[in-house]
């Protein structure tokens, strides 16, 4: 048994965790050209260090108490803005999730990116991203969180645009940066408003002020919504979701790390970290829940018809994030965080497995795949595990977390949202198994390609994640005890320990719904006993709308982008013709005046003299008449 001092010592060194990946970033940036493929080992090793320390810190936090350390960073007059780190339950958990997934992705990339010339750059970017993400989760105040929040966005931007020569990657990276930045501005404003209302960026101070009634109710709602806008941008919530599917242009490990497990979950994390603020405003909660529910069903419905394997997973991610928001919005703090964790594992798994598939067949179109089950003896089963977990099949982790969310929505009493969640669960099961059957069952469609299983550095992370995707659910079950829930809320004055057992029928219903989805997918795509066109095939209105993602992109293109361009061109005409024209007009008239006056330049000295003298005379006369300046 460790004594108190040791536990603190464990947490005191939490600041070092983000520094390993930063070191990796700097090292690879400086020496990447020399190290070449060896740089992968540096990245892997340093992230492993991070992971080990994270486990230590988590252990320390389970044993000990919340630890916080900070120092002055910036003084603005009387206000001292601090920087530091904090280890509480949520942070410690996130540290482990992030560093673990990051480590596995580093490892996986060794195999996946083998032939890439710019491997050091890739690992450097991964390091930067991991640094930012780890920094984000240990931030004790909003400003620091915002800083890392943006850096995470930078990492994501760089990695999406890793294949810089591809026009799609370029557009996707730009879109990702700008869309998330729109959300960030919301967070930025919310943060500043909170600062002026509470006098601090510190989470605890803000919560105390909120609790103590130091802020008006409308201001709480406003700031909560603004902060939620930030979360929407990062977590790809409707209507700021369009960047996330496009972000799949990046290398697949990146999609697994950033656009499934960690960064996109940062929005959920933010809402969870600011939870007391949201709790103080029912309307903000309702908005969070509604946006979450809407996004869940909206993205799931798009996922039904997509053909690109990564895009299907991306829409699934958006939908699952909506789920988490729904959970948080309906008061299910534990449910949201729990699903965040399980989702991180199984979605990372799915992406890595998808990467393995792509690695094997060199296409992303699911219609061109098929019959890979026999070829990919490891990828296939782990993919199946992931699919089962996300579909909410009992005994897999997704089942427990989804159940939590459904009960929380039910208990909240908002039955519309509950209905949405159930339908989304059905959709999820359906499109995930559609994907599974299309890829792995049937005949091998692509001929002439040597399909082979991926190297061990790729399969190993998948196996680990598969194990986690199964077992991680058991830390918070209605059967064996809600360890996670009680630990997360323990000692937190703003959160009540949850005893969410919910009606038992919810669990049964959820199981039924997902099994129904699976069954339907089986019948359509495996058995072909139901025609694929029974609800409208390709070319039908419904299919077209869904396939084109409800035309949201086109809508933005036609309104906001167009408007910006229009304003710009309009202003450029103002600039060119009015501002510049005015100046040119003045210049031209002066020129004309000069022409006119040059007629007086007769070359006659006496004329000049006479004119100069007459001027003098007039001045002197005026002086004499007015009495002069000092008169």
């Amino acid at each position, binding site marked *: 048994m460790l004594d108190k001092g040791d536990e603190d010592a464990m947490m005191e060194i939490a600041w070092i965790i983000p520094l390993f990946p930063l070191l990796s970033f700097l090292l690879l940036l400086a020496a990447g050209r020399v190290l070449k493929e060896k740089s992968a080992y540096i990245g892997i090793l340093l992230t492993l260090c991070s992971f080990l320390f994270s486990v230590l810190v988590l252990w320390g936090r389970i044993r000990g108490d919340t630890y916080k350390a900070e120092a002055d960073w910036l003084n603005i007059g009387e206000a001292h803005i601090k920087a530091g780190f904090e280890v509480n339950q949520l942070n410690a958990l996130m540290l482990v999730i992030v560093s673990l997934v990051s480590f596995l992705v580093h490892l996986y990339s060794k195999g996946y990116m083998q032939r890439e010339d710019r491997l050091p750059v890739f690992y450097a970017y991964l390091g930067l991203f991991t640094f930012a993400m780890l920094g984000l989760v240990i931030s004790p105040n909003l400003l620091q969180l915002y800083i890392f929040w943006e850096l995470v966005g930078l990492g994501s931007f760089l990695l999406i645009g890793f294949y810089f020569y591809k026009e799609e990657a370029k557009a996707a990276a730009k879109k990702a940066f700008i869309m998330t930045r729109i959300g960030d501005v919301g967070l930025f404003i919310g943060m500043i408003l909170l600062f002026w209302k509470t006098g601090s960026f510190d989470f605890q101070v803000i919560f105390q002020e909120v609790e103590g009634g130091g802020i008006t109710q409308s201001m709480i709602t406003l700031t909560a919504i603004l902060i939620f806008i930030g979360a929407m941008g990062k977590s790809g919530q409707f209507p700021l979701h369009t960047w996330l599917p496009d972000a799949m242009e990046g290398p697949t490990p990146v999609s697994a790390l950033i656009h499934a497990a960690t960064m996109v979950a940062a929005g959920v994390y933010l809402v969870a970290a600011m939870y007391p603020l949201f709790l103080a405003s029912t309307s903000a909660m309702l908005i969070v829940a509604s946006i979450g529910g809407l996004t869940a069903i909206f993205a799931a419905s798009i996922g039904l018809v997509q053909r690109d394997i990564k895009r299907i997973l991306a829409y699934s991610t958006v939908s699952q994030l909506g789920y988490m928001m729904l959970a948080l919005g309906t008061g299910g703090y534990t449910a949201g965080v729990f699903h965040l964790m399980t989702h991180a594992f199984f979605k990372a798994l799915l992406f890595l497995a998808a990467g393995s598939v792509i690695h094997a067949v060199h296409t992303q179109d699911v219609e061109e795949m098929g019959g890979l089950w026999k070829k990919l003896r490891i990828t296939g089963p782990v993919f199946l595990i992931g699919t089962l977990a996300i579909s909410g099949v009992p005994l897999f982790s997704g089942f427990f977390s989804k159940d939590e969310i459904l009960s929380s929505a039910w208990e909240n009493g908002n039955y519309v949202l509950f209905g949405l969640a159930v339908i989304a669960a059905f959709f999820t099961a359906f499109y995930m198994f559609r994907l599974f059957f299309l890829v792995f069952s049937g005949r091998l469609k692509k001929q002439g390609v040597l399909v082979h299983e991926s190297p061990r550095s790729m399969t190993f992370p998948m196996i680990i994640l598969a194990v986690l995707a199964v077992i991680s659910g058991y830390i918070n079950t209605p059967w064996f005890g809600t360890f996670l829930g009680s630990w997360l809320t323990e000692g937190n004055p703003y959160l009540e320990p949850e005893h969410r057992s919910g009606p038992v029928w919810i669990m049964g219903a959820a199981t039924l719904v997902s099994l129904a989805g699976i069954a339907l997918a089986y019948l359509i795509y495996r058995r072909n006993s139901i025609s694929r066109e029974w609800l409208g095939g390709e070319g039908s209105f419904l299919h077209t709308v869904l396939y084109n993602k409800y035309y949201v992109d086109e809508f933005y293109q036609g309104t906001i982008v167009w408007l910006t361009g229009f304003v710009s061109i309009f202003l450029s005409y103002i600039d060119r013709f009015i501002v510049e024209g005015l100046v040119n007009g003045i210049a031209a008239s002066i020129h004309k005046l000069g022409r006119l006056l040059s007629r007086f330049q007769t070359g006659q000295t006496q004329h000049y003299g006479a004119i100069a*003298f*007459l001027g003098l*005379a007039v001045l002197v006369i005026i002086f004499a008449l007015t009495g002069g300046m000092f008169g």
Partner: protein
Amino acid sequence: MTLSGEMLAFTLLSLAAIMGGILLITLDRVVHMVIALVFTFISIAGIYVMLSAEFVAAVQVLIYSGAITIIMLFGIMLTRHNDTNQQTAGIFRKLLLLLGIAGFGIAVYAGIYQLDIPPEETSLHIDNTRKIGTALYSRHIIPFELTSVLLLAALVGAIILAKKDSEKGEEEEG
């Protein structure tokens, strides 16, 4: 204001000076004009004497009445002018100028009229030249030396200006 001897002297001298000036602008022949101006210069020297500035008066006679007048006469002669001066300036400009000068004069006169400086006792007339010499070689030594540089420059400049062109003129002629 009583009619003292000093007053009389001042009146005569200033009348002579102004007469000389008026003759300058009314006479036709250029040489006559210069001669008229000599009167003015000499009268001004007299005025200086009245202002207890004997040395300046002496210099005035030497430089203006002597040197400058002679130079001007040389100038006139060397330019071989048909020495009547035909004035061709436009009547309009002349009128305008007269008007301007009159206005200027009146304005300045108004200023002079308002001026009231009580005369103070001075000892300038005692050892005037010595005082000038002392001042010139002590307090004003630098401007004094600079003046000599200026004069030298003017000397050289005048020679070069006159010489070069005459040579060129010869070449052109030749």
